[in-house]
């Protein structure tokens, strides 16, 4: 049978019972809408989080003291085998290494004149700004500890500068960090928030001085960025060998940005699928709707089925006619659902511009395929039932 004719026959069936078809379509539409909306929001969240994390650049390897991978909290806890600043500087000479960033983090009181502000304090080196893609808005970045014990110079985060200095120029001014006197040599550009952590409410001082400020021997983390031309695994191995040579044992843990991003990505993708699956529950009920309506329809049109067989339709043709109705119902439902979700997402985007919405054509196509699948699965049993009706008995039922 020609596909045009097939389509025409199927459409006339759906059109003849408009209310019934319409309601069935609506059921599927709601289900698909739920799935599309949820996966879109989930995808948006994933992209948002990934973007936030990738802002520190790729080709980055983080080294923490302590072997066990108790998350990346290795730096939080004390250690008997500290990672030293000297360890960091020793890595500088490895091939492909671009930047080396030793990190210590704490918090304390920052004073300027009579103003006091309690903020985070990060001790690091001159490589921090380029490695983490932080822009220095004014002045210069931290001094380099490789050229001797660094001066007591500090760089202010954007918010700290605003709070302590207002619009006045901060460069060259003296502040007290944890009671010690520092000179402001730079101000960072505004970076915003990252997952609740205010990146602008920080004061940066040289890592060596931070170590003495917080009374520590070891740093909490060493970040190393490397140039292209080598793989993450190769780079990690080089670092590992160098540190083992210095420490005698592998009492540290390495994690590449790649690995971290990949596992994060995986988790978020699974999460997105899970919430999409939640929307799928409505789709299941929609499928039940299709089955119910199809069975009812087949029963009602028994005589017609008998007639079709009498004029020479094969069982397969009968089956495909009814299956086609089910699939078409579901597909139209899918289209309507996609339209509705498109509208809803558009409204949401207008209402909450900050909401990360990622409309991906991939998911839309998937949604359409899903609805076709739903139609297929729900329609197959009623359609086979229709095909297997005894034509003689069917004809007698009018």
């Amino acid at each position, binding site marked *: *049978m*020609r596909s045009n004719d097939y389509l025409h026959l199927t459409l006339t069936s759906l059109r003849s019972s408009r209310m019934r078809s319409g309601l069935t379509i609506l059921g599927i539409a709601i289900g698909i809408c739920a799935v599309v909306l949820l996966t879109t929001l989930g995808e948006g969240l994933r992209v948002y989080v990934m973007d936030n994390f990738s802002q520190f650049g790729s080709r980055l390897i983080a080294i923490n003291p302590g072997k066990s991978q108790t998350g990346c909290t290795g730096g939080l806890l004390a250690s008997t085998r500290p990672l030293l600043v000297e360890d960091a500087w020793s890595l500088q000479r490895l091939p492909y290494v671009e930047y080396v960033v030793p990190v210590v983090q704490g918090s304390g009181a920052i004073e300027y004149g009579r103003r006091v502000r309690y903020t985070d304090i990060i001790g690091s080196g001159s490589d921090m700004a380029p490695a983490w893609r932080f822009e220095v808005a004014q002045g210069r970045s931290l001094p380099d500890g490789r050229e001797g014990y660094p001066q007591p110079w500090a760089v202010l985060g954007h918010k700290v500068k605003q709070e302590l200095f207002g619009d006045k120029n901060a460069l060259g001014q003296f502040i007290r960090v944890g009671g010690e006197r520092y000179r402001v040599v730079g101000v960072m550009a505004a970076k915003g928030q990252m997952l609740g952590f205010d990146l602008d409410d920080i004061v940066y001082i040289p890592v060596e001085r931070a170590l003495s400020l917080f009374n520590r021997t070891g740093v909490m983390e060493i970040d190393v960025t490397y140039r292209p031309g080598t793989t993450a695994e190769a780079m990690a191995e080089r670092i590992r060998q160098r540190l083992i040579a210095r420490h005698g044992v592998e009492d540290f843990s390495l994690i590449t940005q790649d690995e971290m991003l990949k596992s994060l990505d995986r988790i978020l993708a699974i999460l997105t699928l899970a919430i999409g699956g939640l929307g799928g529950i409505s789709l299941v009920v929609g499928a039940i709707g299709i089955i119910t309506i199809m069975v009812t329809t087949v029963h009602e049109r028994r*005589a*017609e089925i008998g*007639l079709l067989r009498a004029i020479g339709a094969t069982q397969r043709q009968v089956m495909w006619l009814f299956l086609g109705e089910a699939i078409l119902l579901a597909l139209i439902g899918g289209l309507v659902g996609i339209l509705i979700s498109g509208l809803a997402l558009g409204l949401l985007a207008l209402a909450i511009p900050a909401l990360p919405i990622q409309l991906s054509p991939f998911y839309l196509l998937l949604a359409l395929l899903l609805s076709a699948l739903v139609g297929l699965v729900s329609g197959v049993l009623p359609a086979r039932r229709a095909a297997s009706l005894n034509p003689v008995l069917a004809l007698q039922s009018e």
Partner: protein
Amino acid sequence: MIRLEQLCKRYQLGDEPVQALDHVDLSITAGEYLSVMGPSGSGKSTLLNMLGLLDTPDSGHYWLNDEEMTTLGEEARAAERNRRIGFVFQAYHLIDRLSARENIELPLVLTGTAPTERRQKVDELLQRLNLDRHANHRPNQLSGGQRQRVAIARAVIRKPALLLADEPTGNLDSHSGQEVIELLEELNTEGITLIMVTHDANMGRRARRRLWMQDGKLLKDEQDARP
């Protein structure tokens, strides 16, 4: 053209088995005009269904144009029903949501005939049966007689060899009924073998060969002498 040999069919009706066809033997040549009469439950409709390949016998043989029909698979039977057999029912069995034209062209649509070819053939028939004004009307917009004529058109659009009619005038008033019978007989004169089941003796007597059935057996087989 048709040869039935010891055809048997049994049904289970509740607790009791019913012998719908009891060792029926029958030979029909091409172009004949037969009526099948008998009380209800005599098996005449079952016989028609067998002839029309709508049903399969429990035992016996059915040759149509020297081809054994009883061994055919369902797909092959469907093909035969499409090409060589036309059905006309008491209840018309038109599809309500399709127009007269669309109803008539159904057999052609099922086998993938091109739309232009279909249109041509359907137009011819519509003209001939005085239905061209109603081509785009739905069955519920037609009278009983018109509906049956649409059904007949559908039955003969493929120019089948065999035309089977099961109480074709049962739902019609006498005037429309007359029209329909005359149409069927006209088609028969053009060479289509016509077999009509009826409970109306007057109707049945019009046929040149008359069969009577009772309890699944062929009781009487009367033939007019050729003019």
